[in-house]
């Protein structure tokens, strides 16, 4: 059974996954290498949060 706490955690992790995916899109769409680097840096913590390990 999903309670309120679990539902919020699922929403939070889906949001983290959304940001991680968006960073991957940005990384592949941007032409400037600095924007690509920033997207790669931002990708790491969000994918870890989406995976529930950090």
């Amino acid at each position, binding site marked *: 059974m999903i309670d309120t706490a679990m539902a919020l955690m699922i929403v939070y992790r889906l949001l983290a996954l959304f940001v991680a995916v968006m960073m991957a899109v940005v990384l592949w769409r941007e032409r400037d290498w600095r924007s690509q680097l920033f997207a*790669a840096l931002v990708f790491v913590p969000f994918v870890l949060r989406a995976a529930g390990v950090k």
Partner: protein
Amino acid sequence: MATRLMFSAAALAVALAAGWIFRSMQEAEPIVAGPGVTAQRLLSASEPSLAGGPGDTPVFELAGAPGGTMLILGGTHPQEIGGVMAAILMVENARVKQGRIIVVPQANRSGFTHTDPMEAYLHRFEVETPAGPRWFRVGMRLTNPAHQWPDPDVFVHQPSLERMVGHETRNLNRNHPGLARGWLTARVSHALTAIAKEASIVLDLHEAQPEYPVINMMVAHENAFETAATAAATLQARRIPIGLSASPKNLHGLSHREFGDHAKAQAILTESANPAMGRFRGRTGEALVVEGRDPNYVRAAALKRLFVGFDERGWPLKLRVARNLASIKEIIDAFNDLNPQSPIVVENIPDYNEVVARGLGAFLQPPPRS
């Protein structure tokens, strides 16, 4: 294209490496049931919603003939390892002849699975035993945010309705007596309160930074004050300096308040001095966490900024654990003197002088074979 591929590969490699480190922090260290342990269960036996989750934690019972019951909590705040190790030494050494002692060495199990960002904490430390090294986890004060998130802006404690800063919702020692249908930390507290209701006396083992005023201290609920005062006086007579403080009636969520009010147990909390927790500390390596030595704290003591003495010998873990074990023994003796109708008779609690002289390893069971 080349930079995209390079950055993608690097980001994935960093994420995988960091993920492996964070996953390894979920591994629980072995706690060996000593010869005095008569029953072992998980906390989820008291609160089924915890089963299989990050808040479930081992509960050890040491029982003898009918008598009183004592609950000992370690790891309410998982970086306060002096309390954790004292609880573990009770599990691995003590034998109860009369009465019952229930020990929960890692009360907030989730808090053992992370450390705070930017604090450069050790994840684990080792203690050498005659049969080889044993390893133990250093955790953090609060429940792992990967297990309970998000924090509210304001945490409203139940049932007092006291308002606290939002992150206290993950502080086990602000959640008592807990909620059956609450956040993870509140449900862990609810389960511990259910066990505390079986107990005549509850002891919650904590540590604090040397610059914190409540240090080397017992904090007692009014229904435990006579027991705590007797124990503190005996400790002082044994040249183990310890202070005594009354549990504030309007400060809620803490074990020394809520286990007394809601579980009707004699509730006592102890604090020993842990320099690894303080803001003056230098590198948080094993020399600080285990040996308790730090030149910054020697300087702070010289400037009279601390509430305990601090010299080059520091506050080693073995000394803090020895103090906690001496406190447990004297609290039990005081409880027995004041409650002769339901005593708790315990043997083989490691002696203060022996622990200080021989170290923790001499009192730990051999490491389990994997």
